[in-house]
């Protein structure tokens, strides 16, 4: 298993007054178990606020989980201290949603890519080597190395997202987490980026964890899909299986919305019982049931 998550929990305090202790907490991630095998792209789907972004950030340790374990390549990295964690940072990188704010507008493209080499600084002792690597990685994502002296605002959304992907690839990570990486792009550009990701996977043996609210996009690139709702995984199955045979009511709703642009008729939120557990329905298909 490349990545394993066991019972991850994370709550955030609901903002009360600044002087008073916060009264209530929001359970952003409420006991999530997840497993990702090398080469098997996993799609994580859910609405805004379901906790998928928080989960992504917990995996790369940008947020610390309250409880639970993260295992990478079999090693427990939950409580690895900062300095030792650096070698894991090199192995997993993240691409963010907004190409307009994930690149520092004051940095040239070269500087942005150079910064990515920080963790492996010894590999690039001379500026010439760094330029070479930057040019190499830009070519990989289909951009011209001549763009290195330009600034992010001179590029379109799709191009910026390619630069963000290039930045993530500099360190040759094994795991790439894409947090709504195509959600703010046009459908045509989305397709181009997804095609690029396909190509990169074949070339570099990198595994994707693709987070999105759109089942259609996720299905395009994932071998397996996990559906998240209110901090919990409610269904997980291989892609075709999930699309042809959705079992959880929330999954059915997502599917109808993403593919047919139809809403479901339900009036209240889908209920999740406190003792609900994921049950195996065979074929690698797991559903949350009481």
């Amino acid at each position, binding site marked *: 298993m490349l990545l394993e998550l066991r019972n991850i929990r994370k709550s955030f305090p609901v903002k009360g007054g600044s002087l008073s202790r916060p009264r209530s907490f929001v359970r952003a991630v409420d006991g999530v178990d997840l497993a990702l095998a090398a080469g098997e792209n996993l799609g994580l789907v859910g609405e805004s606020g379901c906790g998928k972004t928080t989960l992504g950030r917990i995996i790369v340790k940008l947020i610390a989980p309250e409880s639970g374990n993260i295992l990478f390549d079999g090693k427990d990295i939950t409580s690895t201290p900062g300095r030792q964690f650096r070698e894991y940072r090199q192995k997993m990188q993240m691409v963010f949603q907004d190409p307009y704010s994930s690149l520092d507008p004051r940095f040239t493209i070269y500087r942005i890519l150079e910064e990515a080499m920080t963790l492996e600084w010894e590999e690039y002792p001379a500026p010439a080597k760094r330029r070479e690597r930057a040019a190499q990685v830009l070519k990989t994502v289909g951009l011209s190395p001549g763009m290195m002296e330009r600034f992010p605002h001179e590029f379109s959304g799709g191009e910026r997202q390619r630069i963000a992907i290039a930045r993530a690839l500099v360190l040759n990570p094994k795991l790439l987490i894409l947090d709504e990486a195509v959600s703010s792009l046009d459908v045509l550009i989305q397709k181009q980026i997804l095609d690029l990701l396909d190509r990169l996977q074949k070339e570099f043996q990198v595994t994707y964890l693709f987070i999105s*609210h759109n089942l259609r996009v996720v299905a395009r690139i994932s071998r397996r899909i996990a559906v998240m709702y209110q901090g919990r995984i409610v269904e997980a199955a291989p892609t075709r299986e999930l699309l042809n045979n959705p079992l959880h009511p929330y999954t059915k*709703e997502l599917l109808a919305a993403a593919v047919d642009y139809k809403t479901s008729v339900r009036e209240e939120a889908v209920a999740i019982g406190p003792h609900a557990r994921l049950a195996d329905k065979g074929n690698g298909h797991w559903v949350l049931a009481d």
Partner: protein
Amino acid sequence: MSSNLLVVEDLTVTVAQKEIVSAANLEIPFLSVTALVGGSGSGKTTMGLAVLKLLPLGFNVRQGRIWFDGREVLDLSEDRMRLLRGKEIGMVFQEPLYAFNPVFSIGDQIAEVLRAHTPLNLRQRRARILELLNLVGLPNPQRAAGNYPHQLSGGMRQRAMIAQAIAAGPKLLIADEPTSNLDVTLQAKIMELFRKLKDELKLSILLITHDLGMVAHMADRVAVMTGGKIVEQGMTKDVLKDPRHPYTRTLMETIEV
């Protein structure tokens, strides 16, 4: 001409010597949903703004004519245009947070539209606001009317903006990427709302979007736009069954699952 609510003929819009819209033709029949599909930079938003003569500074209409309900639009004075905007044509934008004034409540902002275009008195306006908010599916209209824009979630804000756009009872609603910032589930709900409004209010809709999938499920007619030009136009089922232009075919590839 008489069966069309909006006709755009040979419209060319330029900014700084560059053509954003080139000789574009568009027809929107009464009681239909027409989609204008294209990627970013295709000129579709500019076309929508041109109909309302709300082009930003620096944009010029080099040539072309626009008829709305039989009347020529481009010749109208600013005063006459103001009567058209809101009362006969409403517009909904992509980011509701920017379309609303953050220091006024939703109710106040809808009231502003009613004051400008309808002869209703205070009590009638209050009732109409609640009626509108209920029509767009906001769960607690009384509370929503008193809320400020930042207090509502994204989906609810979008509904409030639709309420404001239809407040004065327009014949045409221009929706410019109305759901691009929303989740798929909210997107589906807004699409359903549009269908409902079209049937109940006899509203025609010009849907500007980049998502051909949305077009397939929503629109009766579609116009495909790229590089400022309308490259294909017709009934949705015809265009999707037999796309002629290579750009349309490229777009078709994006709706496979």
